[in-house]
C-alpha cells in the first residue's frame, strides 16, 4: 500500500492536469462539433434556397411558355378560282404575287356562314383568321401554279385572340367589353369547332419566322440567327485578341510601369457598365467608320470589347497556373519562348481559357443595353442571312415582346426566354465537350 501510494500519486498528480485538459477538450469538442453541424445546416439551407428559387424560375417560365408552342389552325377548303388569282392566265410571278388571295379565302370562309350577311359582322368574322393566311395561300400558289383552278384544303392560322380563346386564356364568362373577342365571335368559333375544322398543332412558325406585329406570325428564328451571327463575330474578334494579349502580358512582357498600368486598366475595363460600350460602338463603329446600323457585325464588335477583359483575366490566370517546371523542361531542351508557349503552356492552359471564354460569351449573349445603342432594337421581320443584315438578338427580342400589348406575346416572351436558355445550355455543353477533348489529348 505504501508502495502503491506514491505510484498512484504519480499518475494522479500528473493526471490531474491531464484530466483537466481532457475535460476542457471534450467540452470544447461538443461545441466544435455543434458549430460544424450548424455550419453544414446553413450550407444545405442556402443551397436548398438557391435550388428552390431556380426551380421556381424555371417552372414559371416553362409553364408560361408551353402554350406558345402550339397554335390554333383552321382547315379550310378553298377553291382557287383562276378569275381571282390570274384572270389573264399568264402565270407570271408578278401577277401571282399581287393577286387577290384575300378574296379567295373570304369566299370559302363566308360560305361556311351563310347566315352572316351584314358587312360589319363579316368583317369581324374575317378578323378571326390571321392576316398571315393570305401569304400562306400566295406562297402555296407561287410554289405550284398548277393548283390554280383546283379545290384544296389549306391549314391556316387563326388570329392571336382566337388562339388565346382556344387556349383558355380569354375567359368566356367575363363581360364582353373587357375581352378582345366578341360574343358573336365566340359563337362562330364554337360552330367552326363543332364542324371539326379547328385543329391545334405544333407552332412551327415560332421556330422558323422572324418578328411580326401579329403574335401568331411572330417567330424567334430571326433573333436567334441575329444572336448567332453576333456571337460569331464576338468570338472571332475577342478570343484571339484576348488570348494573344494574355500570352504577351503573362509570358513575354517585362514587369514595369507600362505593363502594370495596362494590367490595372484591363481590370477596370471589366467593370465598365455595358451601355458605355454601346455608346462607344455608336460613336466609333457607326458614326466614324460608317458601319451599318442594327447589324450583328457592330453588335459583335461592341460585345467583343466588353468580353475582352473577362477572357484576358481568365486566360492570364490559366497561364499562370501552368506549373513552371513544364516551362523549365522545355527551355532546358532548347525550345524558343514561342515554342514553349505554343507547345506546352497554351495547351495546358486551354481548358481554363475556354472556361473564361464561355463565361464571357454567356455574358455577351444575355447583353441588351449596348445593343440598344447601336440600333439592334429595331423591328426586323426578315431573318438575317449574314453579319451585315439588320438583325436583333434574343434578349432584345424578349424585351420587345415583353413590351407588346397583345396577350399572346406573354407566352411568346416566356418561350423566347426558353430559347435563350437553350442557347446558353448548348454553349456550355460545347465548352464542356471542348474541355474534355483538350484534357484527353494530354
Amino acid at each position, binding site marked *: 500500500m505504501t508502495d502503491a501510494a506514491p505510484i498512484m500519486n504519480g499518475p494522479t498528480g500528473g493526471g490531474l492536469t491531464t484530466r483537466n485538459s481532457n475535460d476542457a477538450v471534450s467540452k470544447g469538442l461538443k461545441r466544435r462539433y455543434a458549430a460544424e453541424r450548424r455550419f453544414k445546416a446553413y450550407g444545405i439551407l442556402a443551397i436548398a434556397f438557391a435550388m428552390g428559387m431556380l426551380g421556381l424560375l424555371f417552372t414559371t417560365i416553362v409553364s408560361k411558355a408551353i402554350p406558345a408552342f402550339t397554335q390554333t389552325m383552321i382547315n379550310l377548303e378553298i377553291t382557287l378560282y383562276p378569275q381571282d388569282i390570274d384572270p389573264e392566265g399568264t402565270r407570271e410571278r408578278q401577277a401571282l404575287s399581287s393577286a387577290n388571295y384575300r378574296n379567295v379565302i373570304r369566299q370559302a370562309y363566308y360560305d361556311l356562314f351563310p347566315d352572316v350577311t351584314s358587312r360589319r359582322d363579316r368583317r369581324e368574322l374575317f378578323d378571326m383568321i390571321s392576316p398571315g393566311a393570305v401569304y400562306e395561300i400566295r406562297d402555296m400558289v407561287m410554289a405550284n401554279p398548277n393548283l390554280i383552278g383546283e379545290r384544296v384544303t389549306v391549314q391556316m392560322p387563326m388570329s392571336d385572340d382566337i388562339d388565346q380563346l382556344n387556349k383558355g386564356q380569354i375567359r368566356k364568362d367575363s363581360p364582353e367589353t373587357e375581352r378582345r373577342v366578341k360574343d358573336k365571335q365566340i359563337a362562330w368559333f364554337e360552330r367552326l369547332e363543332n364542324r371539326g375544322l379547328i385543329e391545334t398543332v405544333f407552332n412551327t412558325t415560332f421556330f422558323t419566322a422572324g418578328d411580326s406585329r401579329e403574335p401568331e406570325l411572330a417567330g424567334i428564328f430571326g433573333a436567334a440567327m441575329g444572336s448567332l451571327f453576333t456571337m460569331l463575330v464576338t468570338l472571332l474578334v475577342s478570343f484571339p485578341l484576348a488570348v494573344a494579349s494574355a500570352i504577351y502580358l503573362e509570358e513575354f512582357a*517585362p514587369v514595369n510601369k507600362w505593363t502594370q498600368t495596362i494590367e490595372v486598366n484591363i481590370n477596370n475595363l471589366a467593370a465598365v457598365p455595358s451601355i458605355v460600350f454601346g455608346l462607344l460602338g455608336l460613336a466609333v463603329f457607326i458614326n466614324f467608320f460608317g458601319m451599318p446600323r442594327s447589324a450583328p457585325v457592330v453588335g459583335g464588335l461592341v460585345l467583343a470589347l466588353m468580353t475582352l477583359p473577362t477572357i484576358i483575366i481568365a486566360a492570364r490566370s490559366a497561364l499562370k497556373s501552368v506549373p513552371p*517546371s*513544364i516551362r523549365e*523542361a522545355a527551355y532546358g*531542351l*532548347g525550345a524558343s519562348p514561342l515554342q514553349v508557349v505554343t507547345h506546352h503552356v497554351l495547351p495546358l492552359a486551354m481548358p481554363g481559357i475556354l472556361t473564361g471564354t464561355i463565361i464571357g460569351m454567356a455574358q455577351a449573349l444575355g447583353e441588351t443595353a449596348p445593343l440598344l445603342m447601336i440600333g439592334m432594337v429595331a423591328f426586323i421581320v426578315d431573318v438575317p442571312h449574314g453579319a451585315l443584315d439588320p438583325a436583333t438578338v434574343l434578349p432584345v427580342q424578349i424585351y420587345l415582346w415583353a413590351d407588346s400589348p397583345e396577350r399572346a406575346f406573354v407566352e411568346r416572351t416566356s418561350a423566347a426566354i426558353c430559347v435563350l436558355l437553350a442557347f446558353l445550355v448548348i454553349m456550355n455543353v460545347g465548352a464542356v465537350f471542348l474541355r474534355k477533348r483538350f484534357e484527353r489529348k494530354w
Partner: protein
Amino acid sequence: MTPDMNQSIPQDTAGDAPVTQSQTDAVKLKARNVKVFYGEKQALFDVNLDIKANEVTSLIGPSGCGKSTFLRSLNRMNDTIDICRVEGEISLDGQDIYDKTIDVVHLRARVGMVFQKPNPFPKSIFDNVAYGPRIHGLTNSNSELEGIVQTALEKAGLWNEVKDRLDQPGTGLSGGQQQRLCIARAVAVSPEVILMDEPCSALDPIATAKIEELIDELRENFTIVIVTHSMQQAARVSQRTAFFHLGYLVEVDDTEKMFTNPTDERTQGYITGRFG
C-alpha cells in the same frame, strides 16, 4: 569576404594544374570570375571553375550556397528570370556562352538539363523523348526519329520498361522512371554537357541507385555536372567535387581527395557534418 576570394582562386588553379599536366581530358566548360546577381543581391562571388570533358563534376554545399545558381548559369537558364544578371565569363569549348553572337536555343541544345523534380511533359513517353529532336529538326523521317527515341531510352536504361507503352502518358510512370525519362529526353538531343540539379532528391533509394548507375554510364559520352545535397552521392558518382559556401567556391579537387583530405577547413567541417 576578401579572404574567401583569395582562397578560392589559388585552390582552383591548383585543381587546374593536373589537367594541364595529364593533357588527357580537355576542359569542356570554363568559368572565370563568375558573379551572379538577383536584383541587388549577389548570389555568386567570383567563381572560377573548370569542368572537364567526360567526367562527372559534382557541386556540393549547404542550401542557398549558390550551387544551383551556378549550374543554371552554365546553360543560361537564369535568362528566364528577369532580375537575374550574370557577370564574368563562362566558356564552352573556349567560346563565351554569354557572347551576343551565341544563340541561347543553340546553347541549350548543346548543354542539356535535368531538374530536381521529374518534369515530363504531359504527353506520351514517345513524344516526351522526341520533343527535343523535333524542335531542333534533327531528323525528318519517322523511322529515324523512332531510332533516336529508342537509343535515348536505352541510354537512360528505360527502354525495356516502356517499350510496349510508348504511347502512354509520361506522367503515368513512377517517380524514378519519370526522372530517367527526363534524362532520356535530354540525351535525345545529343548534347555535349548534361546539367543535373539534384536529380535524385525526390526519389527513393532504389530509384536513386539506378540513376547513379546511369550517370556513371553516361559519363562515357557526355560531360556531366551534378548538384547534390548528398555527399555520399557526390562521392559515389563524381570524379571531381566542388564545394560552395555562401556564394563562394571554397574548394575544388578530385572527389577522392575532397572527401579524405580537404584543404579548406570549411570543406572539412561540411563533409564531417559540423554544419550545413
